[in-house]
Every structure is written in C-alpha cells, then in structure tokens.
C-alpha cells in the first residue's frame, strides 16, 4: 500500500467527517417526528400500565383518553399553576431547576374499579443512565395503586429487572405515609418482611439500581408532600 502524505490524511478525514455528519443529521431530522410520536405513545402506555390497564401502541391513545380524566401542574407548595399542559412537562428538565420554579405534573385517572387515583411521574439516575416511572396512589394519597418503571441502559438481567411485573407488583398496597409522616418506599437488600408497609425486596445483583430507585421515589414524591397531605380522604 502506498504512503499517503499528512495533508492527504487531514483532507481525507475532514471530508469523511463532513459527509458522515451531514448524513446522520439529515437522518435524525427526518425521523424526529416519528420518534417523538413513539415516545408520546410510550408515555401514555406507561401511565396506563401504572393504573393496571394493559395497553399496546395501537390502543394506548384511545385508552388514555378513556381513563386519564384530568391533569394539572403544581408548584412546590402544592398550589395549582394554571395554563400549563402537564403532559408536555419533562420531569428531567424540571429537576434541573431550583425547587421553587419546578413544575410538578399530576394526572388523575379513573380505573375500572371506580376509585379515583392520581398518577405521579418519577425520574432519577440509575447505574448507567436515567431511570423513570409512574406511581399511582389511591385516594388516601398514601397507598400505592400500581407502579411502572423503566430504564435506559441498566444491566440486563440485574438492574434492568426493575421494569418487570415481578418487581413492580411488590409495590401494590405499600404506603408512602405513616400517619402524616412521609416515609416513601424502601428497596431493601436481602428482602423485606412481608408485613412491612414501606418496603419491597431489592433485586439481587442490582443493588445500585435498587438504591437509585429508592432514592428516585423519595426524592420525587416528597415534592408533592403538601398536595398529598391536603387532598387525602
């Protein structure tokens, strides 16, 4: 193979990078609308899953319209901020703001059993990337009706197990309050006792993800403290 001069190598790499960059940004721009629509459907699907309504990508929008009755945005005191679409609030971006300026979205839904529940989005940092989910609370604003979690890149077979039904089902019926005191849900390594109302089993081999999930729950839910205490019945 013949030797190339340094100038040639520089020009070659520059041209290559420009071509590749153009190609990729073109693809990203063209596919963007389709991708964000998928994400929107996925968000609706997850929310429905947290209230125990199985949905797939075809019927998610329809079921969402049927079950999720209203949505609103709170400030950190639990007062409603009018005029903001709760669905379009990105929790990750809100968490970067100071607490006083954060928008806290709440969704209110009516599952088939007739009890009004609220859905709160949660988001945090896992071991390798973001983890997020939805927590639905019964009308006492303490008992968990259902949860759904997901993650971007937790370790398959270990931390990635947080999005399985086996893990999520353990949260049902647990309480985030003890009287008026906010406790949240502990994810307990080595397993919890069955009668512990504030704890679930951690995932073996997924300790860091389990801890991250516990932190995410207490961190996100306590922001709603004022609202939850005032609206319990």
């Amino acid at each position, binding site marked *: *193979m013949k*030797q*190339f001069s340094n100038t*040639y*190598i520089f020009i*070659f*790499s520059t041209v*290559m*990078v420009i071509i*590749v960059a153009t*190609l*990729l940004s073109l*693809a*990203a721009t063209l*596919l963007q609308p*389709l*991708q964000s629509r*998928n994400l929107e*459907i*996925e968000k609706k699907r997850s929310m429905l899953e947290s209230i125990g309504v199985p949905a797939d*990508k075809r019927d998610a929008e329809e079921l969402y319209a049927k079950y999720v009755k209203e949505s609103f945005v709170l400030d950190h005191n639990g007062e409603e901020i009018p005029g903001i679409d709760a669905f379009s609030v990105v929790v990750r971006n809100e968490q970067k703001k100071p607490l006083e300026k954060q928008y806290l979205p709440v969704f209110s839904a009516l599952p088939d059993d007739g009890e009004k529940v609220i859905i709160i989005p949660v988001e945090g940092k896992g071991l390798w990337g973001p983890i997020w989910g939805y927590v639905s609370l019964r009308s006492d604003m303490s008992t968990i009706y259902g949860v759904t979690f997901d993650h*971007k*890149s937790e370790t*398959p*077979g270990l931390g990635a197990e947080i999005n399985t039904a086996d893990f999520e089902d353990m949260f049902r019926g647990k309480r985030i309050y003890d009287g008026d005191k906010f406790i949240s849900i502990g994810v307990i390594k080595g397993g919890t006792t069955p009668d512990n109302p504030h704890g679930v089993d951690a995932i073996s081999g997924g300790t860091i993800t389990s801890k991250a999930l516990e932190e995410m729950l207490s961190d996100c839910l306590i922001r709603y403290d004022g609202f939850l205490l005032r609206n319990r019945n």
Partner: protein
Amino acid sequence: MSKREREPLFSTKNVKLLTEPLGRNNPITVQVLGICSALAITVKLKPALVMAVSVVFVIAISSVVIAALRKQIPERIRIIVQLVVIASLVILVDQVLKAYAFDVSKQLSVFVGLIITNCIIMGRLEGFAMANRPWKAFLDGLGNGAGYGLILVIVAFFRELLGSGTLMDYPVMEKLGAYSIGYEDNGMMILPPMALIVVGLIIWVHRSRDKSLVEKH
C-alpha cells in the same frame, strides 16, 4: 490488475464467499466471534431477527464502502475510517428502529449500539474488504452477516420455544395443549448461560457432521 479477465458475478469462488460463512466457516460456531450479543438478545425470536437483519445490513454496506474506498483510505488511519463507517451505519439503524420499530428497539436497547464493537464486522472489513473488490466484499459481508444471523435465530428459536413456550410471541405450547398435560416452561432457557449451552450444542452437532472442523491433536 485492470487487464484481468472479468469474473462472472456469481462464479464458484464468489458463491463460496456467500455460503462458506453459513456452514464451514461460520463466524459464531467456527470462529467463535460475536458471542456476547448472541447470548444477550436470543431470549426471543423477534429481537434476534431484527438484530440479525441489522448486522447483515451494517456488515454488507460497510464492506462495500470500505472496499470501494480501499485505495483511497490512508493506511495509518484505516481502523478509524472503518469504525466511522460502521458507527454511522449503526446510528442510522438505531434511528430507523426508533422511528419504525420502537418496541423492538427498546428490547434491543444497548445492543444496537454495540453492533459497532461486534468483532465480526471489524474482522471482515480489516481482513477482507480492505483487499478486495466491492462486489466480493459485499458477498463476503452478506455471507458473514447471514452466518451470524442464522445461529442467532436458531438459538433464539429454541430459547423462546422452551423458555417462554412461544414463537414470535405466538403461544405455541398453549395452542398445542402442552400445559394441560403437565408440561412447564423451562425458566433456565431465559437466562444467558443457556444461550452458551445452546451455542455449544450447535457447535457439537456442526462438528460431528463435518469432521474436517475437528482439530487434530
């Protein structure tokens, strides 16, 4: 070189490029490459199929690109150029999956990105495409991608059938009435070690049928 007689497109030698990796020179069972992703995404048939198609696409196209540019690519940065080509194609695949096959892209998660590090692709570019014409490189890429995909699909077939009792999410075992006579799914099949064992069994069958693959000691 330019005066050489033109080979027919599908000469015996060229067809061999395509078929050898499917059998005698399979990248997984004979060269034992690409095992990592073979273990990870073979729990269900559908992601395995999508992964196979993605790898075939990436390896075939990158082989052609590298082979077409082989005389222009400066030797000193050839690995970087190969990586740039592979990485761009993988990002394209990832974007397209996110737009058109969102569920599958969620299941494959990080493994689409990890196609970049699949040693089969780098190996074929460095070992074959850098020294051959685009058409030959294309066939070689296609063959190796398909050889990889073939094993992936076979492994996924057994793991999904025995582990979840379904095929392409269709409940085969239930429809056959297997559960009513006491059959149960084997949870072990879902775990990664069983993929290794299934690959091992395939290698065993492969070698017992083709004695020339067995090393002489």
